């Protein structure tokens, strides 16, 4: 299976486009190492991520590459297996000597390869929204983090629907950390968590959870359920006429549940996102058109695929302004505080202290026909939390992941 994925990865390299450009052909290629799961349980997310990277590479190569050098995309498929992530990260960094490493889906996969990236002193871009907190100079994060997603969503839900909240979360670190984030935002608002339930990954039957929710009579549900099995909650809750508004930092733009379940299972779901396919600005429309022209069978351009696309352009901007692919030179560009690009969502910038990315956040609502409406535009929100608690990568590089319960030591 390993062999097959290597061949599949090599066969999909979009190298045709740059042939038109003479300077690009003359120069040595710039190597991007990409780790995305396109088989195994996480393929539903990994495939659009691979597509996002491929589209960006094809466009950049057609326009002359990075500093005149064509991009060579070297994709390996770790199949959702963290040991393979480590093996492939080593192979890409040590043997292939890639200029930059991109990818990883789960936080576990990111934490599995981060020590390898750090030891090789390489430049790594993580492209998912996640629970936040990684303070590591070797890593840039282009996905949204809790201060952009949860600190926006939760106050809106409390104001609109009420102070009684029921949390349904996946029983692993993302679910627990995001539930903790929710509690820390709810407390100053005087809101109350009337029930909190952690669900083992893979559980697909929710009759009891639905009854527990009815018993607790919350005003709205804070949904942090993860994975295809746990997503069955929505269909089962709708069948039991639970009819409660739901808020989630991961639904719709990430797992496009509203496209997978027949309406009205996702009715009254609210989510905050930097990208969702229904976004209809001119830039977003042009981007969607290019994507669907290249990948006509894509069900939905999700936020992960979008971030993977943006990551390649972010790297292009850094390398061209630094006139180098060296990590130290790239970080000098980040340190200016204006290292940004015009992405399909709007202008976004890398924050020098945390090396996370600002995002234009919007709050969206799913109606009973599963159409998506933007109900609030929060504007551009900085990834401020790490900087606030004391992570400053321009001064020191602790290479740690912080959480509200595990903060940097003062001093």
């Amino acid at each position, binding site marked *: 299976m390993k062999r097959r994925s290597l061949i599949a990865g090599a066969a999909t390299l979009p190298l045709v486009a740059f042939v038109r450009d003479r300077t690009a052909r003359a120069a040595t290629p710039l190597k991007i190492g990409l780790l995305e799961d396109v088989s195994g349980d996480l393929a539903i997310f990994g495939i659009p991520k691979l597509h996002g990277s491929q589209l960006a590479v094809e466009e950049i190569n057609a326009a002359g590459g990075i500093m005149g050098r064509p991009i060579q995309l070297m994709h390996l498929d770790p199949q959702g297996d963290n040991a393979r992530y480590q093996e492939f990260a080593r192979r890409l960094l040590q043997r292939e000597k890639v200029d930059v490493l991109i990818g990883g889906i789960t936080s576990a996969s990111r934490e599995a390869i981060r020590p390898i990236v750090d030891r090789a002193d390489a430049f790594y871009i993580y492209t998912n929204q996640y629970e936040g907190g990684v303070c590591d100079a070797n890593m840039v994060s282009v996905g949204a983090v809790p201060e952009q997603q949860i600190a926006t969503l939760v106050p809106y839900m409390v104001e609109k629907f009420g102070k009684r909240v029921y949390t349904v979360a996946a029983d692993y670190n993302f679910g627990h950390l995001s539930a903790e984030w929710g509690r820390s935002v709810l407390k100053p608002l005087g809101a109350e968590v009337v029930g909190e339930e952690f669900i083992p990954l893979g559980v697909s039957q929710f009759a009891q959870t639905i009854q527990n929710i009815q018993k607790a009579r919350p005003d709205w549900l804070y949904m942090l359920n993860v994975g295809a099995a746990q997503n069955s909650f929505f*269909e089962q809750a709708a069948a*039991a006429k639970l009819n409660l508004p739901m808020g989630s930092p991961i639904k719709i733009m990430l797992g496009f549940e509203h496209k997978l379940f027949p309406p009205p299972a996702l009715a009254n779901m609210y989510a905050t996102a930097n990208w969702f396919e229904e976004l209809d600005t001119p830039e977003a429309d042009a981007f969607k058109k290019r994507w669907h022209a290249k990948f006509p069978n894509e069900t939905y351009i999700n936020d992960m695929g979008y971030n993977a696309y943006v990551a390649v352009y972010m790297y292009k901007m850094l390398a061209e302004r630094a006139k180098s692919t060296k990590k130290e030179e790239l970080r000098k560009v980040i340190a200016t505080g204006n290292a940004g690009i015009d992405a399909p969502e709007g202008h976004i910038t890398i924050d020098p202290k945390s090396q996370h990315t600002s995002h234009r956040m919007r709050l969206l609502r799913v109606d009973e026909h599963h159409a998506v409406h933007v109900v609030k535009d929060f504007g551009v929100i900085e990834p401020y939390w790490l900087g606030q608690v004391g992570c400053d990568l321009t001064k020191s590089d602790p290479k740690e992941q912080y959480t509200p319960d595990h903060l940097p030591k003062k001093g």
Partner: protein
Amino acid sequence: MSGDLFSYIYQFADVFAFLVLSAAGLAIIFGMMGIINMAHGEFIMCGVYVTSATYHMGLPLVLAQACGTAAAGLVGVVLEYLVIRPLYARPLDSLLVTLGVSLIATQGTLVILGSTFPGIGTPLGSFDVGAYTFSTYRMVLFAAAIGVLGFVYVLFMRTGFGVQARATMQNAAMARALGVPTSRIYALSFGIGAALAGLCGALYAPTMNLIPTMGAGFIVEAFVTVVVGGASVLLGTAPAAAVLAIIRSGLNAWYGQVIGQIGLLIAVILIVRVLPSGFSGWLARRSAS
């Protein structure tokens, strides 16, 4: 109060139905025939996908579910003929082979049909008892589980085929000597087991998110129920599912799903320790003494 009481009964019925329907096909293929079928979840997935595909082609749900059941049964018969047949005397090899089939089926589905598949909305609406609302379709699942138990009992205990099948599983050489067409019996039994797995998928298709690896969500419960049930499918599955459902729905209600799942597995360890041949062995010994 009546709402709470009904809620307990409903939760029990819900878990019971899930255990019985997940396990019924495996009870025949693993419990009776001795094939450690790691591809059981993929038979279920086959039932789900065919149901959804034929439903979206315009068939009424019940007919689509019949198609899903039949398709899984057909796949079972073909698979038995192609790869399972040489393995009746080699149960450990059957584990490897069916695991291979399972991987090929999930990844093949992913490659050919993509990572997601359109779902079917749950039919039949809901009803109220006290302060709670319940999905009506879940009661249909419970009725189906009882129906499946009855069907398996009648088929294997009350028909000529059942007698021949039980004879074949107990002593194939002797059965053949007496003129039983054992290879056809094996193929048919395997096909019925696969069809029951397909039926489970067909019934749960309207309540779940459809992805190629969804079969994995059934397989732990299926094996647990069959192992606790013991060698005799007909005697064991129902009491095993009932006891496990009481334990799980009770723990789910009082302590949440995490404890419910842990409790289920601890109960299984204890039961297997105390009753090494499962409920059916214990019941058989009791009725013998």
